[in-house]
């Protein structure tokens, strides 16, 4: 319990000082988990970018194959997540500091729907995205260090190669337990203090 509290506090600290961002208010983990329509783990199989109908904003769509639903939720095997920003031709549009999804990523996402459509987006911006990494044989969740504006979107790896991911991490079991508790409305004393 104590270790989990420390990890969550560490993650919150990291999220409060992101590498790059527009300006966001950091939300409690429980709130993000509770407000999400789905909390999933999946692999980003394909991404593509296109202008909206008004030709004003480029959106990037990510096809995510879901390997696990967290909490009480369940849904389709494949979800499409839409985020602002992307490259079409030689023109790049970025929502500075917003999260992005890259082909091949193993991710855990908290998803909600766009206000004006049934499309999914990452809930609470960077607070709703984790990368799955292997640390000493244990799969852990870490914050994505590369947001829009940190690396050329059109580069093959979007700058990930040069960004070592360190810092606090949650195991998947810890995360799953936290999501279940949050969505069930269980407010543990150690989380209430955060």
């Amino acid at each position, binding site marked *: 319990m104590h270790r989990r509290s420390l990890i969550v506090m560490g993650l919150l600290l990291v999220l*409060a*000082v*992101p*590498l*790059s*961002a*527009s*300006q*966001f*208010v*950091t*939300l409690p983990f429980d709130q993000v988990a509770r407000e999400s329509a789905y909390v999933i783990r999946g692999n980003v199989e394909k991404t593509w970018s296109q202008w909206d109908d008004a*030709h*004003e*904003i480029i959106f990037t769509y990510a096809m995510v194959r879901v390997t696990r639903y967290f909490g009480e939720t369940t849904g389709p095997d494949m979800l499409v997540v839409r985020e*602002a*920003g992307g*490259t079409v031709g*030689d*023109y*790049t*549009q*970025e*929502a*500075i*500091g*917003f999260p992005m999804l890259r082909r091949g990523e193993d991710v855990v996402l908290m998803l909600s729907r*766009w*206000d*004006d459509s049934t499309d999914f987006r990452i*809930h*609470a*911006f960077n*607070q709703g995205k984790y990368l799955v990494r292997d640390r000493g044989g244990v799969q852990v969740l870490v914050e994505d260090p590369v947001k829009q*504006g*940190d*690396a*050329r979107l*059109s580069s093959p790896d979007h*700058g990930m190669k040069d960004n070592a991911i360190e810092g606090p991490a949650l195991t998947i079991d810890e995360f799953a337990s936290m999501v279940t508790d949050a969505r069930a409305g269980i407010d543990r004393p150690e989380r209430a203090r955060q």
Partner: protein
Amino acid sequence: MRKRNLFALAFATLIVTATTSPAFGYVLLSPRRRWSSTPVTVRVYNVGNSTISDGDGGVTAVVSAIRAWGIISSSSTSSPAVRGSAPATIMLNSNGGGLCTGNCLAATLTGYYVSQAGDDRIYDADVYTNTSQPLYSSRESGCSGEYDIDSIMTHEVGHVIGIGHSNVSGATMYPSISACNTAPRTLASDDIAAKNDLY
């Protein structure tokens, strides 16, 4: 003894150097990009934010605040932002079609063409505001839990001109802001160094 003195001298020199040299922590957006010329024209749409009670919803305050950068030509406009098309426009009354909602305070959407020479030019940048967050401006007296629109937009215009975030606490481009904090209205030496790096 002499060896110890030399070590002490070297250590003292290191400390003095570390404490007197300007410690810059700024980051430029990647890939590096800038507007082709200065001053950079930034318009503020003249329909203000309804949570700001200063007479015009923060428009006049923001027009003035963003001039802190020294390379901004700012004015209000009756034309809303046209994404993908200059000039840079700040929208205080719009979240950008759902772009900046929830825990987002403000968002900068910037566009650029990739240059083969590696010298990318910013083509457009627009700023959107979460109309559900409590905001106030420098033209109001007092603050009770609101976020300062002058500070927020001075920070966002840093993104507009090509600057990312700084790890220097106290810099305008420091990534976090708390309610009622007005310090980011004033550029720190770190912010000025970032601007001078680009322009």
